[in-house]
């Protein structure tokens, strides 16, 4: 499967993350899966005129393009000209190249939340008029338009995340290379279901604190970060705590809130990232699929039943009260 990887209005972090893929031989892993990188900005030898010749041969039909991976938002400004990113050496805006190449691609992948929805680059007043390939925040459209379908008939595949997890990218590419990926494998926001049908909450190591509403109050506290610290893990679609990052990590395991980086519009939550917005003391963002009345009732019940150990440890950065040891055979 011939893959072309382009970067535009982003940070390159999804590529850097990709290189952290859990394999002892990254280059061999791709090759063995039948994935041929025609060109990647960080990984390929070709520069300058060699790259331009490759892009032209794809557009002319001389070179088959099976998967176009775009990392970074698409910068439409200023005034629709795309001049906030002119592809070096070409005098043409990157959005021109992306449109031309997407029209030739069997599959188009948005790598990371910038390419999927606009992401961080679309923050604030969105000074560069940044958008995703087929979305602008949660609205269909983006650079390629709501009706775009790649050669395979699929919409743009949104491998969203900021950065995106290396395995989300590689597993998607491997499934495409094996021709086992179908439209039904995408969720309603066109994210691969294999990671987007989970919630960040699933597998969270803080779950005992969550159950008892024993909450962290300051950075580095061990408690649940939903009530005060802005954590959206109970609402956010991703398997970060089932498929950890860089060995044994995740945001919540690193001591900071899930900021919903796989979700459209996460860059402008309407409140400071580190604070949970509340109405009458109740978090506005309740756990997915949970009715408010149930949440309120459960929260008040579990708060009143919080064991001392959980309560104290929640506001410390290490265990100050250890679980009791009962020297009997546990029933």
């Amino acid at each position: 499967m011939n893959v072309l990887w382009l970067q535009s209005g982003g940070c390159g972090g999804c590529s850097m993350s990709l290189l952290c893929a859990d394999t002892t031989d990254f280059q061999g892993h791709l090759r063995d899966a039948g994935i041929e990188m025609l060109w990647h900005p960080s990984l390929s030898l070709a520069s300058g005129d060699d790259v331009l010749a490759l892009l032209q041969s794809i557009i002319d039909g001389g070179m088959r393009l099976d998967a176009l991976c775009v990392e970074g938002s698409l910068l439409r400004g200023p005034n629709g000209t795309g001049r906030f990113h002119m592809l070096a050496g070409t005098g043409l805006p990157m959005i021109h190249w992306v449109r031309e190449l997407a029209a030739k691609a069997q599959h188009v992948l948005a790598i990371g939340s910038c390419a999927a929805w606009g992401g961080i680059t679309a923050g604030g007043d969105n000074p560069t008029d940044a958008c995703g390939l087929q979305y602008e925040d949660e609205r269909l459209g983006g650079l390629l338009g709501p009706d775009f379908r790649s050669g395979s008939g699929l919409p743009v595949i949104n491998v969203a995340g900021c950065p995106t997890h290396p395995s989300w990218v590689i597993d998607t590419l491997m499934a495409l290379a094996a021709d086992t990926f179908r439209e039904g494998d995408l969720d309603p926001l066109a994210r691969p279901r294999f990671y987007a049908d989970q919630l960040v909450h699933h597998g969270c190591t803080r779950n005992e604190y969550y159950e008892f509403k024993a909450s962290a109050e300051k950075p580095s506290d061990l408690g649940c970060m939903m009530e005060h610290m802005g954590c959206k893990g109970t609402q956010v679609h991703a398997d970060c705590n089932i498929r950890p990052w860089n060995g044994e990590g995740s945001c919540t395991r690193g001591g900071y809130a899930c900021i919903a980086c796989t979700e459209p519009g996460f860059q402008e939550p309407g409140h400071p990232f580190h604070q949970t917005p509340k109405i009458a003391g109740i978090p506005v963002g309740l756990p997915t699929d949970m009715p408010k009345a149930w949440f309120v009732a459960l929260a008040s019940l579990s708060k009143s039943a919080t064991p001392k150990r959980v309560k104290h440890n929640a506001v410390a950065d290490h265990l100050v009260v250890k679980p009791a040891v009962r020297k009997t055979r546990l029933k």
Partner: protein
Amino acid sequence: MSSRLLVGPFNRVEGDLEVALTIADGRVASAQVNATMYRGFEQILQGKDPRDALVYVPRICGICSVSQSVAAARALADLVGVSPPPNGQLATNLILAVENLADHLTHFYLFFMPDFCRPVYADRPWHAEVCRRFLPDSGEQVRAATAARQRWFTLLGTLGGKWPHTQSVEPGGSTRAIDAAERVRLLARVREFRRFLEQQLFDAPLELITSLEDEDALWAWHARDPMGGDLRCFLSLVPDLDLQSLGPGPGRYLSYGAYPLSDGGFALPGGLWRHGAQEADPVDTHSISEDATHAWLAQARTPLHPWHGLTRPEPDKPQAYTWNKAPRLGGEVIETGAIARQLTGGQALVRDAVQRHGGVVYTRVLARLIELARVVPLMEAWLQALQPGERFCEPVHLPEHGRGMGLSEAARGSLGHWLVVQHGRIANYQIVAPTSWNFSPRDAAGVPGALEQALVGAPVREREKTPVAVQHIVRSFDPCMVCTVH
């Protein structure tokens, strides 16, 4: 007869880069460096809660993400007037060092060395061996280094949750306390990386590498086994390709000082190093200014200090040719990076090599590899110094008004954040990144930036459209274009 050449897209530079060259008599006569992409982080941050910077700024850059976080956390700490507890300081040093060393490894194996595999060098005696080691998709050492890098970053999974865009770095320290058992595992991971460096890169113990006190000692060690390990493989190319005289920089080197210590000093002290100096001058950050004459950005009457910096696009501005401003220190062009840190940080071999050759392709790459050998033992000591059970992070309360400066050293050089807060909101946020310095455009006086100067005189072969010597020089700075403009 002179001709023009427009070179791009450059890859293996992190971000997009274009260089316009004027060629005369087979050499570069002048160069203009264009950072081709603008995103507007300094505009996006306006009006936000100051702590939101900790979410936004790491996302300026996917390769110096932690460096950006550290600079922002320090700017916020400066605003409040606090410093992290000892564990927080050590953990932050460790997190930053993981990124910086990974970047050095990535630069050498994935970004810099592959250029020597180009067919233009097919007649050189070392070419087949270099291809065996460094071809991007199949080179044995490239693959081994990618695997070592992947393992190395598992340190950050534990120390900071994930990389890039690690959000554990706070003004009050680190949000992830490390316990004694975790420390044992982290030390084992550092030893694993040490083994990779000692077996593959250096073919020698790290302590032997850092004890090479001058070039004579370096080249005597090289002569014992000229292709033994990847550093000596690189050294073998240096005289053959004249890399010791390729790409001379401005001869002034800036480091803000890397890895603060609890006594107030730095593990790698900073300063301004002038060519031929015996010691570093102190850095006066008040003398930093940015000139927007040749940037597609609004320009004040005079160059501005970052406290008063202005970032407003003017895409139709005449005479502009890049999105990057021109930073100057006391009005002067400077170079920054591992070479500066090792000069101001007193590394004997790097000082000797730069004294003889200046800042060139060879000395920039040498300094980076020496830094790898020098910082790994520091990390081992920092891990040992952690006090499990003691605080890693103190809560901080931000004032409604004030300002803070945060300085950091990214792999590729000096990074500064200048934050102004009014009514509890960000009123101005200015970022001067390492490659903003190194790949600066001309200033109002027409003085070219460091890379623009370094490219002058570079050889251009007949019919070359992407001159290989230009690529070596550009990549020797380990540029990060996404940081440059941000």
